């Protein structure tokens, strides 16, 4: 998915507020038609980056290039891009119809044509037609999302930006809208640039993901690459619950793990460094009856178990670490809290990352 013309390119962009660099020397190519997601914790500079892409802020240093043209000084209202804001920024003093038609009205489109386009869009985002004259403050959270989406789509922009629009929505509706958004991306074929602090959300929707940390874009890759080959401890922990074990290179090509008080077999270090973190995903961990069943084994005691619908999660105390094991419900561990258990994993399921 990374092939093709870049529709939007940023070159060495830095944004400074006073002495603080909110975005620090970021370069990125966004390919025409892809769903690109920027993920980072709050304060990592992702909103600032997006505002520069949309033309709401100007970079302090560096260039924003849209279809080969430098657009640093082109204001947002002259760019063929549109944004869905975190707060949605709906015009609360206007109706659903007036909100959706706003960009068309600004361009001097006739009333009849505006209404026709509005009805078409309401159909696309699954809003009932009789919402046309309803005040936006009277709409539910999900409906407001749809109005914001339709409003941004109205002028048929080349690129759609999304600034965490789903962050304030309850879990079930969020899951539904994630899927709808991905379907919308497929149906419209537009370039979507999405930011979120949830890597889980990014995984569901994106063709490619960029991870931001402290103003820098530290890793770019497909969801699969990010999942299986996280660049460092920050990225691996950002993906949700993982086991990260601090290790040092020891004898026999194995790693010493002081926290567990044992030697572990691990993959060859990618950058040749002799210390780092061994990352093992909870679903790669399993309960063992015999040490020979896995490349690595650890003894511990079952601290607690948590039912999570289709899966069950176990916390196992081993050494000074609390290890997380996750099983499908059908393969649940049959035992008691405080049982002495043996868990293990294979070398191929672990990754060695730097700090």
């Amino acid at each position, binding site marked *: 998915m990374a092939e093709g013309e870049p529709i939007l390119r940023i070159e060495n962009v830095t944004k400074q507020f006073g002495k603080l660099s909110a975005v620090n020397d970021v370069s990125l190519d966004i390919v025409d038609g892809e769903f690109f997601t920027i993920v980072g914790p709050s304060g990592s500079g992702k909103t600032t980056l997006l505002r520069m892409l949309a033309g709401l802020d100007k970079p302090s240093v560096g260039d924003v290039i849209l279809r080969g043209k430098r657009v640093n000084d082109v204001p*947002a209202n*002259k760019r063929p891009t549109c944004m869905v804001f975190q707060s949605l920024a*709906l015009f609360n003093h206007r109706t659903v119809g007036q909100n959706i038609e706003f960009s068309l009205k600004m361009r001097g489109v006739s009333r009849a044509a505006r209404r026709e386009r509005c009805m078409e869009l309401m159909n696309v985002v699954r809003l009932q037609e009789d919402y046309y004259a309803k005040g936006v403050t009277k709409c539910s959270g999900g409906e407001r999302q749809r109005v914001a989406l339709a409003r941004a789509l109205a002028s048929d922009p080349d690129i759609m930006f999304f600034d965490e629009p789903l962050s304030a929505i309850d879990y079930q509706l969020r899951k539904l809208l994630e899927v709808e958004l991905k379907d919308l991306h497929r149906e419209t074929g537009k370039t979507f640039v999405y930011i979120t602090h949830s890597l889980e959300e990014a995984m569901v929707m994106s063709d490619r993901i960029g991870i931001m940390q402290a103003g820098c874009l530290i890793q770019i890759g497909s969801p699969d690459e990010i999942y299986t080959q996280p660049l460092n401890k920050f990225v691996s922990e950002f993906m949700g619950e993982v086991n990260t074990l601090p290790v040092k290179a020891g004898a026999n090509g194995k790693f010493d793990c002081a926290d567990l008080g044992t030697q572990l077999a691990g993959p060859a270090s990618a950058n040749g460094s002799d210390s780092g973190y061994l990352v093992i995903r909870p679903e790669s961990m399993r309960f063992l009856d015999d040490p020979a069943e896995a490349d690595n084994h650890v003894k511990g005691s079952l601290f607690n178990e948590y039912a999570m619908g289709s899966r069950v999660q176990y916390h196992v105390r081993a050494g000074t670490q609390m290890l997380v094991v996750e099983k499908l419900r059908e393969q649940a561990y049959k035992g008691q809290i405080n049982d002495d258990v043996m868990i293990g994993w294979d070398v191929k399921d672990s990754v060695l990352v730097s700090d």
Partner: protein
Amino acid sequence: MTTTLDAPPPLPQPNMLQSFGQWLRQPGFLTASPVLIFFLIGFVGPLVIVLGFSFVPERTFGFHGDWTVDNYVHIVSESYYISFLWSFGLAAATVACCLLISYPVSYGLARVFGRWAAPVMLILVIPLFVSENVRLFGWYLVLLKGGGILAGSAKALFGVETGTLLYSPGTILMGMVYVYLPYTLFPTMLGLSLVPRDQMDAASDLGANRWQIFREVELPIAMPGILIGSLLTFVLAVGAISEAKLLGGANIVVVAHAILHEFTYAQNWPLGSAISMFAIAITGVLVIIVMRRLDLDRLLGRK
């Protein structure tokens, strides 16, 4: 296993009297009642008396049962209506001037000045600590003919003999704008600060230029504040008297001045009452027209 709950029995419907009694016992009503009583005794009562006086014959001082509308006829026939034209004209002009000044200043205070907003605000507020009459008398001293600060300085420094700016409608208007500006400024500023930054960003992102953002987003959202400010200023300006007396001399008699004249010098309470009621009626109608366009609940953030 799920259980179904029986529907609760319907609540007994209270009759009208009971529900009115409950309404009276609301904490909100109870806490407001002292003010309500004060208003009834101190405001509504005297107003009813003034209303009564406006219907008794000229130069009488009691109610003897002979009602007449002559006083209202006199307002028109004896050219008191000119006072009304001056008062309402000056008030409208004051509101217009105050809005023209307030909007940019409010915009600056709400969006541009940043940490300088507080000092600027202080500069705007400090003159309010001095009585209106004293401030107006200051202007009088500045503008006084011959010995005034303006004319005197011109003569001493440049040897130029100048006339005076006093006693003209323009000077009265300046005085009124000067005195009533805060009543427009602060509500306008409140209104403008209600405009969310991201809605302006969104409008820009959706292709609106600066003027379109102003017309489509800023102005409609700030409108309640602007309307309330204009209303306050207008109502106060209609009742203004010091500006015209101090800066306008006897050339222009505004409504409040006419009322004062009838109640004191002319000893004609009925005519004074009629002029008062007429002024209240016109102002009241204008206020109601404006208030109908206002959603106070939304303005107070209660939705």
